């Protein structure tokens, strides 16, 4: 297994900065997701690690050794491509054997390892099929087995599940997590699907416009986003613009633009007088009928719509021009559409983000 380090890596296409001074360290055996919208530079980053693209600046090290100038075929990396990129002219067995033949592994060893890799992804018995005779899920498994059979130092996955239907995606997601943990292989994967990133990776690097916005565990990224972009991109978030009006022992006092004063936990770099966004996840907000009253963080709003979605019920509300979303597992006491309601949340359930609009 190996470590992967990126240090100040940049790549531009003409005037467009695809990746800008990106630094990232992946520990041996760790799985990291590069998560971001399309065009954020995540695939460019992956291609630089693989060696298909050379960075304009910065260093990439695999297992401590700089790999600049090392062509892809000497990097000992396994890669699963978005559309699998299986060799259409070769059987499943020959697809798997390809990398082993390139490594001059002897015949009997190839047969043994190909068999083992196919068993690993539950594809035993399909050795003689051609890629186009396989379903999408089967092709995905073959692609995974082909990348793993060469026992690479690092595994790269480029949107590995984006071409599968929802149900299969779920199953493959679990399978990838299981394989990754069992083999303990250093894994970097690229996705625009936050759910996928949260489910597979031990750490997530959220990217936007060629930069890493935040790196952390799924829990940290979701619970303590550092920027508005991260808050909006991962899960749903209520973002209330306001201004810090004072500092108290319990936290920072914030005047929200649409009305009330609330209390929020202190945040490094935010001081009284600053414009801020108060971020509260929809499931942390409690909806009460308007007449109920207790001191604390609360805002009055009008219910626009209530939709029952099975496990959760979503409530859309407005407070002046501010849109709010609340989700709850217990729809029993929700007010109906058109009614007034009070929204409440605990001090520890909200976060202050530096305001983007002044």
């Amino acid at each position: 297994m190996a470590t992967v380090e990126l240090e100040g890596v940049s790549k531009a296409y003409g005037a467009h900065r695809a990746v800008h001074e990106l630094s990232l360290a992946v520990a041996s055996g760790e799985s990291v997701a590069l998560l971001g919208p399309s065009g954020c530079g995540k695939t460019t980053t992956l291609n630089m690690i693989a060696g298909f693209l050379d960075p304009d600046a910065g260093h990439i090290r695999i297992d401590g050794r700089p790999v600049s100038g090392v062509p892809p075929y000497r990097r000992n990396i396994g890669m699963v491509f978005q559309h699998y990129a299986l060799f259409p002219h070769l059987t499943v067995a020959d697809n798997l054997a390809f990398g082993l033949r390139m490594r001059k592994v002897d015949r009997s060893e190839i047969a043994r390892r190909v068999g083992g890799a196919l068993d690993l992804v539950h594809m035993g018995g399909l050795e003689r099929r051609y890629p186009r005779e396989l379903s999408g899920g089967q092709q995905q498994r073959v692609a995974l087995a082909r990348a793993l059979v060469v026992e690479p130092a690092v595994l790269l996955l480029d949107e590995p599940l984006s071409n599968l239907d929802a149900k299969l995606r779920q199953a493959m997601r679990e399978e990838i997590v299981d394989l990754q943990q069992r083999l303990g292989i250093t894994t970097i994967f690229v996705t625009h699907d936050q759910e996928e990133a949260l489910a597979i990776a031990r750490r997530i690097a959220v990217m936007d416009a060629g930069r890493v916005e935040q790196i952390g565990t799924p829990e940290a990224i979701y619970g303590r986003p550092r920027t508005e972009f991260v808050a909006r991109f991962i899960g749903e978030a209520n973002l209330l613009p306001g201004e810090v009006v004072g500092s108290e022992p319990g936290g920072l006092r914030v005047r929200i633009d649409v009305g009330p004063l609330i209390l929020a936990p202190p945040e490094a770099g935010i001081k009284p007088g600053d414009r801020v966004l108060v971020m509260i996840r929809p499931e942390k907000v409690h909806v009460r009928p308007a007449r109920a009253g207790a001191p604390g963080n609360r805002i009055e709003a009008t219910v626009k719509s209530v939709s029952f979605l099975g496990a959760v019920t979503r409530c859309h509300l407005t407070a002046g021009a501010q849109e709010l979303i609340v989700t709850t597992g217990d729809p029993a006491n929700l007010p109906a559409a058109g009614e007034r309601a009070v929204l409440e949340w605990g001090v520890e359930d909200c976060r202050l983000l530096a305001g983007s609009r002044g």
Partner: protein
Amino acid sequence: MSRPATPWLLLAVPLAVFGALFVLPLANMLLLSLQTFDRTTGATGGLTLNNYGKFLGDPFYLGILGRTLKLAALATCVTLVLGYPVAFHLHLSTGRRRAYLTLLVLAPLLISVVVRSFGWLVILGPNGLVNSTLRGAGVISEPLRLLYTESAIVLGLTHVFLSFMVLSIATALGRIDPAVVRAAQILGANPVQTFLRVILPLSLPGVAAGSLIVFTLSMSAFITPALLGGPRVKVMSYLAYQQTLLLSDWPYGSAIAFVLLALTAVSVLLYLRALERGRFRMVFR
């Protein structure tokens, strides 16, 4: 208008034109090839296979048949060997450069076959460019006979048909998923191995299409072999022309044309069959 009828309605005009201008004359020629020629009365009744017997029983005619096949096969091989690198280069280039290269590849087709072949006469003739240069340099004292040879025909055919080979192969190369090529690289294949094990096999449909076009066009080419081979180095098309127009033996000329057609068709079918049963048959599905 019911749905199943629509395609046929759309096809009606082309089918009528194709039938009237191609199938009917061909049927007429087939009939003609089964008749007997008489110097005084022309083609006459009574269906017979005599014309075909005459052709297949005569080593002279069979020799011309063999030569036609050989020259077409040679032209195909030469265009393939010359065309593949050009196609690969074309495939790798982009934008403006690609447009100009494509134009360059198509350039031979912009000039009439006759003019182009006369160009070769000027270059290959006894006092042509090649001979005068070699003589001027003192390499030879007597002019080499370059014209009216099989090589001259292959050269002429290659010149014309190279475009078709290049474009066919470039199209097939363009259809290869770039990710498949990257997959080969990341699995440890160096550029040569990537080419031999992935790019070349996946470009075979283009090689097949290009060879079929060049081969069939070369088999039936007339002006190029007529001008660069002349009566000395006859091919089937020239033979058919001679019999029909110079000797007025329409039945025999028709029979020769049908032998050429049959040989071309059989060669093409065998070639396709070999490809579809070969190691890389999956590429052709």
